[in-house]
């Protein structure tokens, strides 16, 4: 995976640690990052993105809580095996729902699309509700 393409939008209003989480999740969802792939170290990513190391650390901690990555002492962070929704605990599931909703709301706002239009489409479009 080429991490050089990761860019942060500092004027978007979305905190940088969340943007990193979205980048990793998008890469995992698209298959660009596969199970067992290693993520850049905290030091490398904070230098590359020119942000505080604590920001990267927080993003990695949250990704670990969400079950997207695993961390091995002395080795680094790796993409975790795919998590089935039935195996996800209630807290992680709730966090996931909030995170998806927040991302959707942010995306809709950035394009000035009312949220109710998105919700209507989700409810009535069979392709999206599948």
């Amino acid at each position, binding site marked *: 995976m080429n991490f050089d393409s990761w860019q942060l*939008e*500092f*004027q*978007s*209003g*979305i*905190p*940088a*640690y*969340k943007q990193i989480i979205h980048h990793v999740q998008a890469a995992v969802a698209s298959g660009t990052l596969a199970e067992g792939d290693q993520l850049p170290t*905290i*030091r490398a990513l*904070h230098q590359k993105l*020119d*942000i*505080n*190391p*604590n*920001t990267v*650390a*927080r993003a*990695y*901690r949250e990704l*670990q*809580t969400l079950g997207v990555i*695993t*961390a*091995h*002492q002395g080795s680094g*962070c790796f993409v975790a095996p795919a998590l089935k929704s039935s195996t996800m605990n209630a807290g992680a599931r709730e966090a996931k729902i*909030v*995170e998806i*909703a*927040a*991302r959707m*709301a*942010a995306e809709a*706002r*950035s394009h000035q699309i009312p949220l109710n239009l998105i919700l209507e489409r989700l409810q009535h479009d069979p392709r999206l509700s599948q």
Partner: protein
Amino acid sequence: MILGYPNSGEVRTPSQDYASARSIFWRSFQVARRFPKLILFPLAATFFFYARHLVAALHSLRLSALLGLHSPSLLTATANMLVAYGNGSNGPNPIAVAAFIFPTQLWYTFVTVAFFHELTRAYAGARPSFVRGLGFSCSRIAPILSWSFLSASVWMIIQLSGVDPIGPAPRMVLGLGSMAWSVIAMFATPMLLRGGTHFPLALLRLSWASARQNWTELLCLLAGWFVGNGLFFGFAKVLQGLDPTLAAHPVTILAARVFYFAVLYIFASIYLCALYIYATEGVVPGPLRSKDMDAVWQIRAH
């Protein structure tokens, strides 16, 4: 009351905001204590603001003759203009005000961007460098120029509006206007650090959006600023009561000004930079300690 943050989807309570403000305050204090060299930036940035007091002190101490300030040179003209502008005896001449405010604002923004750049490094635990900071500002010269022009224009309007003797009500409106401008434009300078739009009006809009998103932490900064100001002017009043001659002496005024900038201005700048990082990154900045590194591994046992 629960506050929602427009784009982030994050919800925080005021008590969490106060906790963040406290955390930012202590991190700022730690950075200021660890890297005393950072003091160079604000002293350089605000040099022209107190230069007129320096000139007044030089005149008062009769050092002007030693330095050749009495000769009809550019230096004398500049000194006289600064003194006249500072005293405001005949009311500031718009040309003199413009000649003072525009270069002063440009220099101030230039050095402040360098300062914030080195502060972001200092918060990550790296040693700051004055030269590297100025080098960074050189790479951002176009947005610095355009922002300085807008900012200086607004300050000039504010300065010139208060020339004629006006009543207390308009003076209060003017004071509120200048305070509102300070708050709205608070994040504009740190925003010059990073990519994105650098059009001055867009910067102003984004700065206001950031201020609204982090109003509690900003309020703590303003409260601290007012308390600091109160203590400073209270001390000045006490000194005036004890020894009016000493309090009115230009050297005392100069020393007080430098102290004022050194304590209040520097700390406020460091706090503001940390607040900007917090606003954009969502995390209170600090160096990555081994304890924090370990925390990543300790969340879940595999």
